[in-house]
């Protein structure tokens, strides 16, 4: 692996961590804190630093939902996957979001301006079915509402 500037920077970032010291999560968090996500190169650097297989690092990084492997979107839309929303038709909301925005859960639009995230119930089931736009609850939503909202979001994200 040729050391590019980016990998050198990551190397410095994780230089304090040691093999066999349960440092993997700390290293991943530190990288995510710095870049907002865990870039692919970082997994290689961390693997080497901690003498782990890259696959081991990847497996860990994908296990924890707070770690992400793609850059965070500028604007995040959380779709609630909880039971109350589900009963009130959130599946339609999801289908609309995915088809209008053209991305799936945990994906970003190509310019990273907008991203979809599968969320768990946050207790505001009164507004079910709902989504959160940058953390702000929007609901209850009908399929038609969602189409409108999704189109607006899409236009903004151009």
């Amino acid at each position, binding site marked *: 692996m040729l050391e590019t500037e980016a990998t050198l920077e990551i190397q410095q970032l994780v230089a304090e961590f040691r093999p066999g010291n349960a440092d993997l999560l700390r290293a991943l968090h530190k990288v995510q804190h710095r870049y907002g996500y865990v870039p692919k190169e970082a997994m290689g650097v961390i693997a080497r630093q901690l003498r782990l*297989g890259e*696959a081991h690092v990847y*497996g860990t990084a994908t296990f924890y939902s707070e770690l992400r492997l793609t850059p965070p979107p500028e604007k995040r839309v959380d779709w609630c996957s909880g039971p109350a929303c589900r009963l009130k038709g959130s599946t339609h909301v999801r289908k609309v979001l995915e088809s209008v925005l053209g991305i799936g859960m945990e994906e970003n639009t190509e310019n990273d301006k907008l991203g979809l995230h599968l969320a768990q119930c946050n207790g505001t089931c009164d507004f079910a079915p709902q989504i959160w736009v940058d953390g702000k609850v929007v609901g209850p939503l009908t399929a038609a509402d969602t189409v409108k909202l999704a189109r607006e979001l899409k236009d903004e994200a151009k």
Partner: protein
Amino acid sequence: MAKLTINGKTVEAPDGAPLVEVIKQNGFYVSNLCYIDKLPPYAGCRTCLVEIEGARGLQLSCTTTVRDDMVVNTVTDDVKQARQYVLSVIDANHSDRCLTCHRRVKCMPGDICLRDDSVTHRCLTCSKNYRCELQTTNDLLDMGKDSVEPWAGEERTYYEAAPPEPDRGNPFFEFDPQMCIICTRCVRACDDLRHTGAVTLAGRGFSTAIAFGAGGAIDESNCDFCGSCIDVCPTATLMERPNKWLARTEDWVSTVCNSCSVGCTISVGHRDGKPVIVKPDSLNPFSDDQICVRGRFHYDAVKQSDRLAQHLVRSGDNLQPTTWEEALDYSVEQLAAVHAAHGAKAIAFLGSPIATNEENYLVQRIAREVVGTPHIDFSAGPVNRAVAQATAAAFGTETLPGDLTDIPERAKTILVVADDLEESHNVAALRIKDAIDPRKLPLREPGRLIVITARRGELCDFAEPYGGVWLQPTPGQEAGVLGALASLLADDAEIASAASEAGLDPAVVSAADAGSTGVDGAALEHAAAILREAAAAADEAFALVFAPKSTGVAGVAESAKAAANVALLVSGTAATRSFFVLPTEANVNGALDMGVSPDGDGKDVNGILEAALGGEVKALVVAGDNPIMHLPGRARVQEALAKLDILVVVDQLLGETAQQAHVVIADAPTYGKDGTFANADRRVQRLRAAQAHPGDAKPAWETLSALGTRLAASLGNAVAFAYEEAADVTEEITRTVPGYEKFQFHGYFGWGKGRAVDESAAGQIALQPVAVDAPAPNGEGEVALLTGRTLYTSLEGATLRLADADKLHREDGVLVNQLDAVALGISAGDNVVLQDGAAELSLKATLTADVPQGAVFVSSYYDGGAVGALLPAENGSTAVPRVKLVKQQA
């Protein structure tokens, strides 16, 4: 031993053995979709439920260990039903409905499923149909018969989701996760059987999936394509790509891999005379259930149509087809003419380290008994004889009794002296990792590893993190580092006195200095401390693994002596069992044992070529060897061969030596032969034919015995070569070659187990002085040229200089240190030129930190051994060859 009852039958098993293995070993069936024999249980699939008297509820037989008086039942209705329900949960996520279908045997792949018209992927169209563990498990649990169907009445949700993308991006495997049941066997095979860790369980919950490396393609991960994960995958998710959609095997033949001296035993599945798949065969207990990418995937490196199918005879500039009879008669006539005109000593013979014992035996018989020439050798002879001589001088015998299986089983301290053992002798490196990082049951105590190599390899990562150390000498200073280690050991009062008691003279090795070896003093002291501990713990096994380079006889000889000294200081008289030499090619030891070495005033291969240049040697018979490819100083070799009156080559491929020959007699492919090989620890193993002979090709033993008979007749001496089959030659070997008496070819008993060594031999041990020259600095614009056997390049493919000799194209270039590259303005992928005088080699540069600064590395087999043109002919110097490195101007 525990006595227990399984389904009413009383059986015995070691206390604490996993119940699931005991059940299987005693001929009972138990589904176990996530278990891997010998590894700790994972307990993820829950299909191995059994009833144990006195236990509450059903128990997992993989997590249960046997004890005395246990009463186990695997066949009650409760057990069966429980397992059926568990299996139906697994089936629910599998893309197939044939599993429970009574029509399966009637359906053909092209038929539309009569039960469910949305079914597109199914057993009938699956490449693993009828060889699939998941399918068999469903059958044996009567899932169809009892109609346990997870999908009964279900909306077809499974088929609504798009299947995950398969990975077909590399030449060796296909990974099609739509069939994956997340048993994680592949993850554990890669972690625990291979210590590679290229596979992982990614994500969580319903989105859990198997992933390679950092989630990309397999060939972007650190997977080295050993295929261990394929062997354990119970579904069609991981399969051998060359085999996946190919004809099924007609039969399996047990033979030996021909690609290094580990001698892994393999089962070759073949059809219509062609190998179509290879699996490990545990006859050789050292390789056991593992092989490497070469053993598994190099069987088809050369197409049958690219092999020699005709015998050839030279007519002017061309080689023209001829018959076997004519080729033989012409050879005999020419050899007899040389004999008559110039005497026996004008004729020389080369055997081969990739030819069988039988072929090598016949070569030397013809040379000695028929012709009466002492000039017998093979290209790898000088290097390996130098090692054998150093070994014999150190231990009193060159056929050491040490058994390689001691390494994974007992060795507590392991010292490896090799270029990159992971690449040259993959499964040996694996067994060393087994000792350092034990994962198999019963767990042994971990050992510690010291690696001496100038070039970083994977094994280096198993040193320091596990309490060992990697000593990185300046290239060419391996003997120097070993010398410095020996001297540090000899300075220890206890070691010195133990050595003296064992009859050694520690003064021979003292006062060597580590100064110019380039090794860090603290690291050296750390290594010495580990070795001192090993010496003090006399009851603990020590192993020194030495894999000699293929060129540079003088340097190899000094390294061998220095390595033997270290082994002797650590283990004293027990060192004969701790010193392991791993030659590069598969049957080097066999060739040496058969006597493919010069007699008395006979010349070795370099001498023979010198003599050919000087006109004293006029005729050369080459059986399976390719000196142009394997010897350094390629131009001189070509020139010498061109001077011969007659060059007879018996070979499978038209390599470069054969292209210069006057007669080429086509040999059968190695996997189409009967015979034997002796591997690194002289396990004598059988080759059995699994491949048809292309065209007129005949196994070399037949050609050689006919050549011997006819030549004897023509020279008027009464030597008989009366063999009906290869087995007759083997039988003669067992009567005449020392160490081989214990084998009987016709009684297969003992093959693969016996080793051609006298295990009780106790020779005279001695320390030897080692001559180490201080490293010369690189000249202006020069770098040290390192070469070695790499993992992916097929010897056969390289012999024909095929563009795909390394199918992954990882090794068809030169490795350049990244800092050197920056200084020279070389970027990855640039073409660079290596120059030595008039000889030049243009190669694509790969930048790396694994090669030390001031050095470059080229695979010794790249492009037919092209790097041999840059290596000086053997000249008695221990210096590392230097070449100029320049960036090629576009």
